[in-house]
């Protein structure tokens, strides 16, 4: 130890004796200055432009403050200027990894208000594509979470499957990311010939490849060391914050609108809901993986059910929802998505309020990050699955 005063030595960027705003914690030989560490808005550890400010006490996080709004694009306001057919091209972009599930919510809301009958075939196909979309979304998170923890390979595996699935969905919808396949009253067009056969084949392929992820990521000792016991979320806290989706199911609560409040035809089939035990990062991730399996199970069941028939009902030239309001909630890949649609009888909604899963999920971050070490903060950040556009809308 030199004869320099310890307090002066550890304060970064200041000359000895200069007044600084840092608080010094602890005493003895190792007092530490508080430091504000701003991660983001463009940082490899935060997918997208999420920013988080960490108040650090040495290596420990004292307080975490998410700073959102870097991706605010004004969806709710813009929706008031688009007619009911155009909205779907807008809403499938707020959570860009689950385009189909988003537009499904709006289509359901409009149908509910107009009391429209949707043909059976359209409903089953919607379920089929929604589940494929869920798998696409989860695969992306498997890849990106592994990257955040320092493993690059799983991303390449995940994109191998993603490309195959996107190719399949593109054959029906024409889109790779934003499908724009729903419309009020059904679907834009029917499935191409041979789609179901191809879908069946792909589901076996993906199922065969799933063990790769269980072995490569979940079974990896380093992965387990970095995630097991990190950031446990008790179920009562999760419920009070409003966390949903895999993040909630990891805490042991089997809440899923597909089961508790079935929409489409989910009531007629068996929907498995995987749950975790203690809601730590490991559980959250393993729930995500097992949800892929569950979605494959649903897809296999749907294949046996798709009936022949039309896929859309006749629409008036101008889709106008009658005066009133409705709320629809669906299980998006990341959690519950709710649309509050209010209409004054005109061509466009009077108000479209979104309840997006990512926004509620990130509310858990300050709770989870309190008192953890910095590397664990990254492991928590990645395991509370969110899409930035879905937070900021």
């Amino acid at each position, binding site marked *: 130890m030199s004869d320099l005063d310890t307090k002066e030595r550890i304060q970064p960027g200041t000359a000895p004796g200069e007044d600084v705003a840092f608080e010094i914690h602890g005493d003895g030989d190792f007092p530490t200055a508080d430091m504000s560490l701003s991660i983001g*808005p*463009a940082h490899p550890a935060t*997918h*997208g*432009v999420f920013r988080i400010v960490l108040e650090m006490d040495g290596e420990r996080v004292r307080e975490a403050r998410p700073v959102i*709004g*870097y*991706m*605010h*694009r*004004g969806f709710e*306001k*813009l929706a008031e*200027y688009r007619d009911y057919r155009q909205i779907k*091209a*807008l809403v499938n*972009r707020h959570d*860009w*990894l689950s385009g189909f599930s988003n537009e499904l919510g709006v289509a359901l809301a409009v149908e509910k208000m107009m009391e429209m009958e949707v043909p059976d075939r359209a409903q089953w196909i919607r379920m089929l594509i929604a589940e494929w979309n869920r798998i696409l979304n989860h695969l*992306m998170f498997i890849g990106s979470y592994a990257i955040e923890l320092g493993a690059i390979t799983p*991303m*390449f595996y995940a*994109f*191998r499957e*993603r*490309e195959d699935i*996107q190719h399949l969905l593109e054959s029906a919808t024409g889109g*790779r*990311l*934003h499908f724009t396949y729903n419309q009020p009253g059904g679907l834009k067009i029917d499935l191409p010939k041979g789609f179901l056969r191809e879908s069946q084949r792909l589901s076996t392929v993906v199922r065969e490849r799933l063990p790769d992820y269980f072995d490569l990521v979940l079974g990896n000792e380093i992965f387990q060391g970095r995630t097991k016991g990190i950031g446990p979320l008790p179920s009562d806290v999760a419920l009070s914050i409003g966390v949903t989706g895999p993040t909630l199911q990891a805490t042991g609560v089997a809440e899923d609108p597909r089961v508790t409040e079935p929409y489409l035809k989910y009531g007629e089939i068996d929907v498995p809901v995987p749950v975790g035990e203690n809601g730590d990062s490991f559980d959250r991730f393993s729930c995500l993986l097992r949800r892929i399996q569950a979605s494959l199970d649903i897809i296999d069941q749907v294949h046996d059910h798709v009936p022949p028939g039309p896929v859309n009902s006749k629409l008036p030239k101008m889709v106008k929802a009658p005066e009133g309001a409705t709320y629809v909630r669906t299980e998006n890949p990341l959690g519950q998505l709710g649309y509050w649609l209010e209409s004054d009888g005109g061509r466009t909604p009077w108000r479209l309020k979104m309840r997006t899963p990512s926004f509620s999920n990130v509310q858990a971050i300050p709770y989870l990050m309190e008192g953890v070490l910095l590397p664990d903060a990254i492991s928590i950040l990645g395991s509370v699955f969110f899409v*930035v*556009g879905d937070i900021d809308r």
Partner: protein
Amino acid sequence: MGLMDQVELPQPVKYVFNWGRKYSLWCFNFGLACCAIEFIAASTSRHDFIRHGVIPFAHGPRQADLLVVSGTLTDKMAPAVKRLYEEMPEPKYVISFGSCANCGGPYWDSYSVTKGVDQIIPVDVYVPGCPPRPEALLDGIIALQDRIQHESLKDRIAGRRLDPVTLGADAPLALEGR
């Protein structure tokens, strides 16, 4: 840069020099929204732009030659993009990937979206689409490499840029005829 910003290189030297530059573009991805997913798809095994000499692992803007802005730029985000661009060393290139980065895309009438990244930084190649396919990015990269091959570094450093290329609009697809 020493000599290069003062003298025009002789043609053979320029050729070899530009040939070397165009196939080692260290790329900094400014992934903002949906388009960033397609950027990642373009970098993984199926499309794999590394075979075109674009390396997506620049550690930060200071080590990068190419900035790919993929996604919606909001007014809140714009200062950060401008700052990262200014941190990059010359000669630097910008690909604007996706309708949002080109002109605001589906949010052309939004109150919080910047209508195009070219309002704050100069763009070399525009790749249209919402989101563009990964193939379109590959095409954009080839178009950019064509420009690099034919450009004079002296002019570039002096700030004289060629007009930007918009894929599919004023230029034929770069892949055609290859």
